[in-house]
């Protein structure tokens, strides 16, 4: 394999149990978002847009749909000669097999892949965040700082800070002095975005130590980062000031979808960095003679004959005459029949809301209709 400078590794094995019904059949990174995308499109497109030609995707939980979606990587222009997307599920060895026991263990078990790709630096990403970012600037900061580790951080409100892994940094240099995992009394409001650049030999050394440590939970946040800090490694923060959203819960996933609908959205998918995704071959959507569509995003192949307001409509969705869809997210090929009402809800793939039926949640309690479910009046 040709040598590569920066190797991307996307942790895509998580179940995303807080997304409940939406991850019953698919891994979290394969959950649909924003009318046509899946969550993993964001880190993958970011890699493609940052000039990263080799990306490992570590899968574990219900990987079929994710593997199928990734295919050859051509959707992200990552079907490259001597590079591209590499799907890395757990595998058996001479003496038994292990699941990925944690984020660090997933990378540890694929050290042979990292050695083969032979990068100078390794970029580790999560498959559950919505943002666009050019990682090449982060790499430049990493080199300028002569760092061992650079961690992407994002300023959150002080009230929210206890929910995150918090980085306490030296204001002038950005050097990380302390790490607090979900602290009750945060000393800083810089949250870790789960984006790490490691110099490769440094990472390898720590992974090899951690891999054989029976007391470790094999997690970057829990084990490796604190160990590196204790060893006084050169660890720097890299501040990101764009839109960044963890979509690990139903509420946050819903909110991130709603964020796309404002007149001037805080996160514009039409921005400078294109988000690539697998495009089904469907025609422009059809808006019927008696339909009404406002403050919404609608994808190809949808057929809208009723009212849609403040909603995100995926490909192939049908909204029948006199149906009302508001404040909701309707995933691919779901059907909202004649006269049905959907409000504050997420309707998963292929679900059917029968004629006259009502699906109503409220702010803070988004109603979820699982994949393929049928809701009768």
């Amino acid at each position, binding site marked *: 394999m040709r040598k590569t400078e920066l190797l991307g590794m996307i942790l895509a094995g998580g179940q995303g149990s807080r997304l409940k019904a939406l991850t019953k059949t698919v891994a979290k990174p394969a959950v649909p978002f924003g009318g046509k995308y899946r969550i993993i499109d964001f880190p993958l497109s970011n890699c493609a847009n940052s000039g990263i030609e080799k990306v490992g995707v570590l899968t574990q939980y219900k990987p079929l749909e994710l593997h199928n979606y990734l295919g050859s990587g051509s959707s992200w222009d990552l079907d490259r000669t001597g590079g591209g997307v590499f799907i890395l599920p757990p595998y058996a060895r001479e003496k038994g097999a292990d699941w990925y026991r944690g984020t660090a263990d997933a990378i540890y078990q694929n050290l042979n892949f990292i050695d083969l790709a032979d990068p100078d630096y390794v970029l580790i990403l999560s498959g559950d965040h919505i943002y666009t970012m050019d990682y090449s600037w982060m790499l430049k900061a990493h080199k300028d700082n002569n760092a061992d580790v650079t961690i992407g951080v994002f300023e959150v409100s002080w009230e929210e800070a206890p929910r995150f892994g918090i980085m306490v940094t030296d204001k002038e240099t950005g050097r990380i002095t302390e790490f607090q995992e979900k602290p009750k009394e945060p000393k800083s409001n810089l949250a870790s975005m789960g984006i790490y650049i490691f110099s490769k030999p440094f990472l390898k050394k720590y992974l090899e130590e951690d891999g054989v440590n029976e007391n470790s939970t094999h997690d970057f946040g829990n084990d490796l980062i604190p160990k590196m800090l204790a060893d006084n490694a050169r660890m720097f923060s890299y501040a990101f000031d764009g839109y960044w959203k963890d979509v690990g819960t139903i509420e946050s996933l819903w909110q991130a979808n709603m964020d796309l609908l404002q007149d001037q959205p805080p996160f514009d998918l039409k921005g400078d960095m294109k988000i690539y995704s697998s495009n089904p071959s469907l025609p422009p959507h059809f808006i019927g003679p008696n*339909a009404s569509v406002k403050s919404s995003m609608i994808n190809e192949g949808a057929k809208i004959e009723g009212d849609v307001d403040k909603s995100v409509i995926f490909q192939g969705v049908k909204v029948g005459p006199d149906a009302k869809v508001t404040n909701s997210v309707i995933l691919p090929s779901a059907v909202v029949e004649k006269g049905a009402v959907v409000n504050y809800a997420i309707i998963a793939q292929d679900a059917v809301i029968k004629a006259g039926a009502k699906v109503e949640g409220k702010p803070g309690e988004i109603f979820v209709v699982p994949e393929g479910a049928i809701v009768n009046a």
Partner: protein
Amino acid sequence: MKQVVGIINLQEGNSLIRELAATRAVEALPFAGRYRLVDFAISNMVNSGISTVGLMLPDFSRAVLDHIRSGKDWDLARRRDGLTYLPAALPDNDSRKGDLKDIYANLDFAELSGKQYVLLTNASYIYNIDFKDVVEFHKKSNADITMVYSKATTDRDGKSVVIETSTNGIVTDLAEVPAIKAGQKDVMGAYLMPVPTFAYIVRTTYERGGQDFLLDGLIRHAHEFKISAYKHQGYVAHINSTMEYYEANRDCLKPEVWEELFMNNDRPIFTKVKDEVPVQYKDTANVKNSLVANGCEIRGTVENSIIFRGVTVAKGAVVKDSILMQRCDVQEGARVENIITDKNVIITKNRWLKGAENYPYIVTKNARI
């Protein structure tokens, strides 16, 4: 369908649609919000299981080449078989007009393909078909050549090929007419025949001074062959004039046509993938009976219209009975009716523009009004 090689003839010049086709081949005309005419011809072949496809390039081929590239979006970028471009023959000493010299120059493609049959189609007809049925029909009918036709539903201007058939479906007459009447059998430019028959017709006709595959080749040789006719039952449009182009686009606003052409799970129409964002409708949008392609941002009123990728319609703007191609910008308070705008047209603030119901006004590429 492994035994069929497909050839799509993009060499059919068309004088009646010059306004939109001045800078591109007719076959590269944008259609139904995100397609180009040629997408139907290629998708029909691919969906029928034909994986060896030759594309006879038109004189202005840049738009076609840029659209199709490796053929990947049609699943034709293959290690074996796949897409082959068949370039136009060099004029040399041969100043003959017509498509026959190009077919003759590229005859090797069909003959060396190792396939049994040639399916020759063009890209000025819009329909969604499974050619497997045509091949089966051809084998059963024991004919030398099979033509695909549909019954014209209205009188139309523009050159068309019509046939008459006997009760057993065998073609008894074949002619090119300047206009077609309702009820006539309109050949949709699709011909299936064994490779040797195809090569025989092309060679003997070209070497005797022929110019046009259809007129000099098929029609003059018709008496030598048993020709059967396969009736296509579904929707067909022939893009032969600006009016037909306008009508065919508006036909896609009929849900049954939209479903038949585009929503068949087994036979999707493929096109170049552009990774556009889903359409963003803002608070002031008011859209009725329209097709809107991804990448658009709509704040104004849109009715009975086809809106291509990346169009913006500003607050207070009104678009009615119109076709707006890629990246048009209709600014605040502007109003357009019965208009076709080519790509990148800007209708500036408060301008009004109206064509006639039966004759849409055409705004050329990159114009600023």
